């Protein structure tokens, strides 16, 4: 396993663990709260939309 693969595995595990924990502990903001906050105004929605559009363009039209 390469260094990069190890780091990405750790990062993915951290994401997974936090997604599960934040869903189970009510006092911590879960993914739903984050999305709710982001989509709460036009500014947040536009930022999320820009990230979505860029990701799609890069992933499906550019990726080397």
């Amino acid at each position, binding site marked *: 396993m*390469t260094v*990069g693969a190890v780091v990405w595995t750790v*990062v993915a595990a951290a994401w997974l663990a936090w997604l599960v924990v934040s869903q189970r502990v009510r006092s911590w*903001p879960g993914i739903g709260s984050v999305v*709710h906050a982001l989509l*709460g*105004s036009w*500014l*947040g929605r536009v930022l999320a939309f820009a990230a979505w559009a860029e990701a799609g363009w890069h992933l*499906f039209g550019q990726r080397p």
Partner: protein
Amino acid sequence: MRLRGRGRLLVLRWVWPLPRLVGDLFVLAFVAWEGVQGRYSGASHASILATIGVVLLLALLAGRGRQRRRSRAWVGDAARAIRTTFGEGRVGTASARGALVWALLIAATIGWDMTSFVEQKHYLPTLSRLFGAVTDHDWGRALLFAAWLVLGLYLALGRRLPARGPGTALRGATGPVGRRPSRPSSTVRGGE
């Protein structure tokens, strides 16, 4: 011949779901078609740009007057939440600490991706290279495209106020009439 009563109801029951069905079939066909496109093809570029355009148009059409908060109030709330939870030596609430974990995770992901990109070594794959291993396959590209499309539609249409006629949204800084005022941070649950 005009249908009446029960006959008309039966016809409507059969015809009514048809536009929805046709729409669903069109989206499925589009996703399957996108799956077999090469990432450098002109058709692929055109379809991705068209998808972004259509979703943006949907967001503008469906979202007019149905946004929960004004942007200025939203930014103000976020700044106030940061000041009151982390300012002046405060430890912060549970919800603020949770928000910090989110920020750290996002920073770690972007930071490591940038590091891998700058280094350009085969043993340091970037995030797009990892996703690229999936999109190299037709099925992988189609599935990922479907997920991207669903996410985009949610960003465009999700979490809107119900349509209740013009002028019902954005009344005041505390949220729509008839609802509880939103929490000061409007970003996180619990921890107040």
